[in-house]
């Protein structure tokens, strides 16, 4: 009941649920760090303090009514009292968000951008490659490796046909 009703209200950053006061703040409301914060977490589920600490008059009246017979509370009042004490239900707490798509997209974008930077660096910053990587040198080097029978069991020289003098 709580989950289905509240799913409509869930925004993008719900996964980062911590103190109610800290969400979506631009600095207009200061956080009082001397009192115990309300923690909305699955691993420390029942906070010592209620979610809504400063109650309006009608909320205070409801709290008074709560001190009496609970059978007299209507369903809406019970729900209101729940919402005063808790920010999210378990259902809402377990809910994921689509944040991972943003994160993955950002990661890929940054990788791509880094790739562009590396390419620019390769073209405009790095000097020439050493002469030992020129094709002629590599050819002579490979021939020498074959003559030496480098890795003749499972590696390099296995693939050279010594009779026909070519790669197998």
């Amino acid at each position, binding site marked *: 009941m709580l989950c289905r009703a509240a799913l409509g209200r869930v925004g993008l950053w719900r996964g980062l649920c911590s103190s109610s006061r800290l969400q979506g703040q631009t600095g207009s409301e200061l956080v009082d760090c001397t009192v115990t914060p309300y923690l909305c977490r699955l691993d420390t589920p029942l906070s010592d303090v209620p979610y809504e600490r400063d109650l309006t008059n009608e909320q205070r009246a409801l709290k008074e009514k709560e001190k009496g017979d609970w059978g007299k509370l209507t369903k809406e009042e019970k729900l209101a009292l729940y919402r005063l004490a808790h920010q999210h239900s378990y259902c809402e707490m377990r809910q994921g968000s689509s944040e991972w798509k943003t994160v993955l997209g950002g990661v890929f974008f940054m990788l791509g951008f880094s790739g562009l930077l590396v390419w620019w660096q390769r073209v405009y910053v790095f000097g020439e490659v050493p002469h030992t990587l020129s094709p002629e040198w590599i050819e002579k080097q490979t021939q*020498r490796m074959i*003559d*030496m*029978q480098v890795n003749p*069991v*499972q590696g390099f020289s296995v693939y050279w046909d*010594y009779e026909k003098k070519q790669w197998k």
Partner: protein
Amino acid sequence: MSLVKPAMRGLLGKRLRFHLPIAFALSLVAAAGFKYMVTEPRKQAYAEFYRNYDAAKEFNNMREAGIFESVRPSGE
């Protein structure tokens, strides 16, 4: 309206009883797989290579190719 009481004890034991046999089995499979797909073929390959290996002949081939500094090819 009466919900079933959730399990309060023995949670770690239950998890271990489920996961440890699987972990051991998978480790053994990994070890066996590595043994029979990597080490045994490698041993066979080395055995095959050295079964009919003529060291002197191979040395002469290498010498003629000119890679040694202490023994030049027989022509020089």
